[in-house]
């Protein structure tokens, strides 16, 4: 932690960056806590305030979302340094890959990670019931895209089979049962678009959901429109989603959006051997092709 704070202090004091985006402790009430708990994103502009920065297993938020170039109020502060876990760094790589950010316009402070909790109000000790679904099998505990790396490598996170079980349960169902499950889950969607707003990879200036000439998706939260919206978003994230699960956390209805993203990511990995990469020069799978891609489903 001190390493992180020192680094932040020196980056700010030297003027290398104008703001360090990291995590800080929450002061004040946060449900369902019995008192002040959890972490939240932090924006440190003054080197003297660098002690606010913390990093531990409560730091689940994906801060890459703050690098969206259309967040004018942040762009206007000046060049940022961002604290990124290995998984978050893949999101930053995605932004660079897709031309939203130039590599030299951000300083990446990688942190070595031992897994995070599902909700920032949990932890900081990491137990199987509380570990995030995405931490199992993580290959990025040592960040692969960074300017600096801080922290010692903690032990790997406890593995949780929660998500694999959920996916297996779905696969065992008949198509009709799965359809009932998804129709029920997605009909609860109120189209608040929190999932879209919070996603680092959803940065389209005009989202297809907002187009009305022609209108592709019902804008009202009808079941039909919700199914179309979530299908579309999952497809637009194919090969780009880094599985940060911010969408699932942001959803006020508790819809299991992570399952959709994970499934599409598994399909992409199986068929095209690709996983959202921390290397910005690796192209996104739907933007390239191989002449020998499988076409067993085409007659």
């Amino acid at each position, binding site marked *: 932690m001190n390493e992180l704070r020192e680094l932040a202090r020196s980056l700010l004091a030297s003027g290398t960056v104008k703001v360090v985006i990291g995590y800080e402790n929450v002061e004040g009430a946060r449900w369902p806590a019995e008192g002040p708990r959890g972490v939240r994103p932090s924006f440190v502009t003054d080197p003297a305030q660098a002690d606010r920065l913390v990093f531990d297993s409560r730091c689940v938020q994906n801060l890459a979302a703050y690098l969206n170039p259309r967040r004018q109020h942040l762009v206007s502060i000046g060049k940022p340094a961002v604290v990124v876990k290995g998984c978050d760094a893949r999101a930053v790589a995605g932004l660079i890959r897709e031309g939203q950010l130039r590599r030299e316009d951000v300083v990446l402070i990688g942190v070595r990670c031992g897994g995070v909790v599902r909700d920032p109000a949990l932890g900081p000790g990491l137990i199987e019931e509380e570990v995030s679904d995405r931490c199992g099998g993580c290959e990025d505990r040592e960040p692969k895209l960074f300017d600096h790396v801080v922290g010692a490598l903690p032990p790997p996170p406890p593995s949780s089979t929660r998500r694999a079980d959920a996916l297996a349960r779905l696969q065992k169902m008949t*198509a009709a049962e*799965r359809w009932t499950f998804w129709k029920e889950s997605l009909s609860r969607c109120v189209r608040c678009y929190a999932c879209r707003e919070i996603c680092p990879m959803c940065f389209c200036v005009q989202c297809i959901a907002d187009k009305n000439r022609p209108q592709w998706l019902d804008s009202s939260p009808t079941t039909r429109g919700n199914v179309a919206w979530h299908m579309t978003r999952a497809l637009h994230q194919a090969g780009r989603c880094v599985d940060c699960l911010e969408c699932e956390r942001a959803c006020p209805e508790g819809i299991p959006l992570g399952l959709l993203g994970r499934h599409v990511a598994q399909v992409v990995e199986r068929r095209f051997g690709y996983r959202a990469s921390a290397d910005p020069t690796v192209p996104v799978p739907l933007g390239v092709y191989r002449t020998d891609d499988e076409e067993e*489903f085409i007659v």
Partner: protein
Amino acid sequence: MSIPCTEVASAGTAFEPKVVAFVCNWCTYTGADLAGTSRLKMSPNVRIIRTPCSSRISPLFIIKAFERGADGVIVSGCHTGDCHYSTGNYYARRRFAIFRELLDFLGVDTGRVTFSWVSASEGTKWQQVVNDTASRVKALGPFNEYPAQGEVGRP
């Protein structure tokens, strides 16, 4: 395996599926045209929508078709390597692969969707694709499970 059109039409039940076919202009559309000029018997259940290339076909077209009452969808383009625009169908192939698996994951019977490569000279193949799809979708029945317009989950 081709199922002659007469079997499809005279099956006796009231349900006639609506199948929408999104086809590429250069290969499949021409192939379909050939099937027509050759007077091949094809199921009348399929309505063709012409696009410049299979790569133009967005999953949203297919979703929209289901929303608007289609019971089945056909998506067809040039064989890989023969795309009029050189590479369009390679991209389309990847996109449709993912989309199809997502549909299956959500619980849509993938028997309702057919993907094919039909070239300009393959009139009989187009006949096959059309008839097979129509009879398969007819057997699956109307796609009533797809949410209707205005249907909402909460009271």
